[in-house]
């Protein structure tokens, strides 16, 4: 079966400004490096990492909202990496996005019905009356009363706004949803509601979700597979429980170790490792394991079915 979304060797670099020509040669900041990631059809994949790890940039490239420097993006097996706007439009309908900040994601001048109907309008689905009707159906489906259709975003709570953003993203019945930290700004009790809503809609629609988050507890409850990003690279990828039970990469381990305990009984003193220390760890691992000379590029190596992590081996 074709995967819903495939990223192949995706890279993004930004040239470093050098107005005075002081740098000896062209330099660039490599934000995302050689990312391979598959979102299987009808599954939820978590992309985790800290701020600056490149996870949001990866999501934006998958949507063609940021142009990749290199690599390929396949949606339902079709390469959309270099597609022109007109050819890309039907694929835009297949891929939608929900952002972290629902307040800035919804136009304050539009009613909720207009907001949810707009994708239908843009893609010319049905008459204006049908579009409004579908929009109101979707408001109901995400747990808001139809009467909310005439309200404005500022009248809603954060959780309600996020429901509207989800309705807008799903009204075109996309194959892929990219959810970029959709629950980070929400209260605990509302967070659970939104997570459950995403789970239910995913199952009903056979949707594929790329769930970008730094909240590992949410990722554990929601996803089928997890990819861990560090310094712009995927350093480990595996089935969700496999990652949580058998993390292989030192960065994954440090990330999991930092999750707050679920019960005060499990309090412990943690030993924290600096970033430099972590970065130095992979060559050290390989030197111990293989005795090879240092400095080859790290590669993802398999560790059981569906599990791979980055290490220096030949």
């Amino acid at each position, binding site marked *: 079966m074709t995967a819903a979304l495939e990223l192949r060797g995706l890279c993004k670099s930004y040239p470093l400004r050098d107005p005075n020509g002081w740098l000896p040669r062209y330099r660039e900041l490599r934000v995302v490096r050689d990312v391979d990631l598959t979102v299987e059809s009808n599954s939820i994949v978590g992309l985790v990492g800290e701020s600056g790890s490149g996870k949001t940039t990866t999501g934006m490239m998958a949507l063609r909202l940021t142009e990749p420097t290199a690599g390929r993006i396949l949606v339902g097996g079709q390469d959309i990496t270099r597609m022109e706007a007109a050819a890309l439009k039907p694929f835009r309908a297949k891929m939608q996005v929900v952002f972290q900040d629902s307040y800035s994601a919804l136009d304050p001048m539009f009613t909720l019905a207009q907001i949810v109907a707009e994708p239908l309008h843009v893609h010319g689905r049905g008459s204006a009356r049908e579009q409004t009707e579908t929009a109101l159906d979707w408001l109901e489906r995400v747990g808001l009363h139809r009467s909310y259709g005439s309200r404005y975003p500022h009248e809603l709570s954060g959780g309600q706004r996020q429901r509207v953003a989800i309705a807008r993203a799903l009204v075109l019945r996309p194959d892929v949803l990219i959810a970029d930290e959709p629950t980070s700004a929400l209260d605990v009790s509302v967070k*659970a509601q939104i*997570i459950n809503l995403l789970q239910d809609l995913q199952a009903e629609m056979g949707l594929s979700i790329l769930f970008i988050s730094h909240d590992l507890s949410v990722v554990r409850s929601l996803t089928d597979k997890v990819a861990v990003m560090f310094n712009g690279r995927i350093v480990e990828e595996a089935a969700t429980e496999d990652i949580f039970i058998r993390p292989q990469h030192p960065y994954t381990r440090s990330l999991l170790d930092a999750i*707050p305990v679920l019960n005060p009984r499990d309090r412990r003193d943690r030993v924290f490792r600096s970033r430099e220390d972590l970065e130095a760890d992979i060559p050290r691992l390989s030197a111990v394991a293989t005795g090879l000379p240092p400095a080859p590029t790290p590669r993802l190596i398999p560790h059981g079915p569906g599990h791979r992590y980055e290490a220096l081996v030949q």
Partner: protein
Amino acid sequence: MSAFPAPPLVDIRDLSVSFPQHDGVVQAVRGVTLHVDTGESIGIVGESGSGKSVSCMAVLRLLRSPPARIEATALSLGGVDMISADNRQIADTRGRVAAMIFQDPMTAFDPVFTIGQQIVETIRVHRAVSKAEARSEAQTLLTRVEIRNPASILDSFPHQLSGGMLQRAMIAMALSCRPQILFADEPTTALDVTVQAQILQLIKQLQAEFGMGLIMVTHDLGVVAETVDRVVVMYGGKVMEQAPVQDIFDSPAHPYTRALLASMPGQGGGRQRLIEIPGASPNPANPPTGCPFHPRCTLADAQCAAAMPAMSQTGPSRQAACWKLA
């Protein structure tokens, strides 16, 4: 004299805070009673709008009044009555007795002064020391919060530092007057999970070392599980339950506490639906009658909608306010 026990470090009794608006009154805090003893750490847990931050700001007198209306039968910090205190006493108490760190360290620092200038200023406002002495003390403080290159950080501007580094600097500044109690309002919410763990551990260490009291304001039960001795659960401007931290997790008495704990993600293995609390938090401009949680509570009946239950003892050192306590 010795017959009187030492007064609590923080003593809040029946605190109400409201903000008159053009179309009504927002009742942010509605009758909160809580105390913190010397060296004790408590967590105030609640969702947005529960009144947890406003309660802390009221006792520190950080709310401009008017417009805020603050009423309480007791509101004291380190034995100083914060209701009758004049501006001088308030300022003195804030430095000497209490310090506060905030959620967003980027906006809490002034962007046009260096970190060093700001810490030095804080020290010199409260203590008669020279600039040079204050600067060397600031440097020591930065070392205490595990900043490796304190001299260069002192000369940095806030925008040059990461969120985690700024929060460390903020903690150093809070410690500069050796407070008896630290108010931490969501200090790690804006930080990455690894940095959060480091900051929480640092706060715990410093609290133990300085014998300092701690009020950790948070919506995250994980943060509470990591850091505090006792928990106060707030909802709709009222205290729902308070108990030692282990009791809260082992045998929550209030239905709201139970629902909050049940909704924590990451429990048990594998993909699963979470247990959610239906409905939404109450509107502080128009709170429900009776118990504020009754519209979302599975046990609620007519009595819950009619009247707010009083706090009752549910164990040796714990109380809850609910009609349905077993």
